């Protein structure tokens, strides 16, 4: 009963705020100003507390907000533009940040005035992230950061970076990590483009040389960085795994287009095409089911398979699409022009998408790591013996 009343009042509150935001909506307003208003009205992340871009209501109302914005033709692309901030950083701040930190970072993140990046992988710490060796040493109210991070998306335009570093090499690897927000424009931060298989540099290498980070930029306790990193990764994997896909859309659309454009009729190829279509549709339905279950508060194993399944399927579909193109598949339209995109690029030629897809089973957790996670956390299988578990980090062999 009280839940019903609560639900009714939450719905009324969201409706009222939407009316304030969208009543007499003027499309000529700058998107950043609009997003600022949206944040101030508590419609950025409705589940966050009031004053931090939210209303303290169930997250399910966010879909109401998104629907209303789209209907009104209001800008919603900040979530894509600043994906690492809005999609992951906000969740980290909400779960582990102090109120002062939330006030400092959430609003400019949401308006995209401040772009965010995530500094996790290192040359020596990929799947074994906890083995990271970039370090921070305390110096009064500051920390001094040294080390190298790699595969950092949008580091060259980001203002803030989320970075776990080693603050205690004398304890086992998971226990000696602390998590900071670092100013990417600070002295000693050097960002270099990392050109990839497609010729683009979506990612960067970032070098830290005696970078001073105030202690107020530390997230959670000293030594709690692994926990905070896990929150970040869970948000990332859910974000990758729960994207709604249209039936026959995305890379499947390109496959069907190539099938038609190149006039194919071979039964074996047709069977392969439909097999991929069916896999894509089963993935779409599973994502839909998982999102429904998550919203209903009864998430099950269906919510853990999305990223894993998508990676394999997208690789197979994009490779098959190039197959359908015959000799055209051997070309690379525009050539390998080294360039550095300033935002996420999801579109491209089938050949480019075929190459880009190789990363799907590596980025955001390799499929091998995802299978360990699914096997151990979802299915309850025992973990592997870990030889480095109780060793001080500095004694663990690496290379």
């Amino acid at each position: 009963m009280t839940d019903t009343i609560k639900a009714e009042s939450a719905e009324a509150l969201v409706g009222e705020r939407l009316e304030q935001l969208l009543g007499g909506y003027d499309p000529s307003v700058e998107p950043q100003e609009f997003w600022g208003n949206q944040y101030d009205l508590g419609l950025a992340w409705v589940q966050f507390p009031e004053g931090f871009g939210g209303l303290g209501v169930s997250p399910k109302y966010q879909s109401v907000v998104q629907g209303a914005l789209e209907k009104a033709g209001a800008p919603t692309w900040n979530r894509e533009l600043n994906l690492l901030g809005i999609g992951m950083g906000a969740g980290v701040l909400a779960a582990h940040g102090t109120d002062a930190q939330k006030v400092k970072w959430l609003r400019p993140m949401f308006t995209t005035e401040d772009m965010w990046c995530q500094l996790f992988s290192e040359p020596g710490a990929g799947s074994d992230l906890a083995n990271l060796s970039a370090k921070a040493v305390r110096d009064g109210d500051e920390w001094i950061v040294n080390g190298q991070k790699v595969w950092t998306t949008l580091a060259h335009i980001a203002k803030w970076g989320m970075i776990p570093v080693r603050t205690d090499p004398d304890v086992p690897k998971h226990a000696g990590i602390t998590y900071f927000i670092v100013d990417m424009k600070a002295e000693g931060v050097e960002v270099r483009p990392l050109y990839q298989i497609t010729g683009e540099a979506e990612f960067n290498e970032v070098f830290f040389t005696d970078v001073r980070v105030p202690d107020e930029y530390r997230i959670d306790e000293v030594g709690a960085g692994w926990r905070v990193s896990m929150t970040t990764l869970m948000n990332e994997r859910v974000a990758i795994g729960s994207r709604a896909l249209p039936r026959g859309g995305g890379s499947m659309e390109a496959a069907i287009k190539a099938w038609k454009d190149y006039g194919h009729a071979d039964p074996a190829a047709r069977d392969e095409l439909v097999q991929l279509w069916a896999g894509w549709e089963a993935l779409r339905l599973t994502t839909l089911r998982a999102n429904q279950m998550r919203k209903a508060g009864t998430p099950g194993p269906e919510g853990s398979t999305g990223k894993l399944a998508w990676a394999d399927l997208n690789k197979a579909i994009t490779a098959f699409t190039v197959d359908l193109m015959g000799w055209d598949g051997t070309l690379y339209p525009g050539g390998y022009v080294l360039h550095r995109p300033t935002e996420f690029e999801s579109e491209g030629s089938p050949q480019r998408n075929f190459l880009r897809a190789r990363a799907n089973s590596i980025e955001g957790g390799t499929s091998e790591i995802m299978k360990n996670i699914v096997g151990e956390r979802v299915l309850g299988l025992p973990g592997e013996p870990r030889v480095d578990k109780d060793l001080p980090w500095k004694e663990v062999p690496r290379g």
Partner: protein
Amino acid sequence: MADQALDVDFALNEAQEMLRQTTRQFLADRVPLEAVRQLADTEAGFDEKLWQAGAELGWHSLAIPEEYGGAGYTFAELSIVLEELGRALFPGPFLSTVVMAADAILTAGTEDQKQAHLPAIARGERTVGVALFEGPRGANLDDISMAAEPSGDGWVLTGTKTNVVFGQAVDTILVAARTAGGLSLFLIPSGTPGVSHEAVPTLDPTTKQAQLTFTTVSVGPEALLGREGAAGPVIERILRLAAVGLSLDQVGGAQWCLETSVEHGKTRFQFGRAIGSFQSIKHRCADMLVEVEHARSAAYHAARVTGDEEELVIAAPLAKSVCSDAYEHVAGETIQILGGTGFSWEHSVHLYFKRAKSTALMFGDARYHRRLLADALGL
């Protein structure tokens, strides 16, 4: 409308959850795998008392309208039972009676026929075998050539039907034949003079089959289901429902296989470790989970659009192809993970492996259904 069909609601309500629990509990108590194996050694292949008990629990009546003695629910409720039956390897003519025949009668039957048969099906007092095809490649309407000639005010049926599931044990037969007007369906008692059945040994011991021979079988006008020559769309519909029903059976069985593999991975020790801690086993199990969850989504979706023919044309072959492949693969992987035990007669996984292959082939295999899907998508 199309969008609604694309985005069905997967959540179960309280009554549906309850139905799943009671069904699973009943099957665990009354039809454990030992019982399934005993029934597999009998000629009938199923147990009349269990059949009755299932009907008393309401399984048979779920999707039958109240005016014909049913509970008036939908295929979504029936799908819960079908999945649980698959998980338990329940033997019996449930698919042919409750899914296919009941729907054919409801779709095509005269009012008298509905009153005569549907309440009996709902009460568990009728078992129906579906006799459509006449050879190993039977999958669609082109594969039906048996003739029915008019005689007096009735009909004479002559020919042979193969692969009639539980055809040796059912009391009623739904048989397809060609008349001057086209394809027609007849519903006749299996004891009708001139009908003989020959049980054939099956790959899957939980699914009996018989070949039925019709030697100038005379039947009355009431045997014709609905209108003469109008059975084509009715048969196409029950073939789609059969595909959906089998998909659900496959999801239930595949889930059992996954759970069995995981349990073995936790309890079997080699090299001083539970074998599930090895990535070679763990990753296989994770892959199996992906397959099972995708199969589940396809089957659940199909079960929720049986009333929307336009979407069912896509959803049914999608489910049958995805679930057939998933079940076959997951059952095969389970044998591999169990090692020698998996190859033994003693462990029951072989029954799942056999049911996986058998259900994959029945009413057209995965490739056949992908062809249907490609046609439906205009590819």
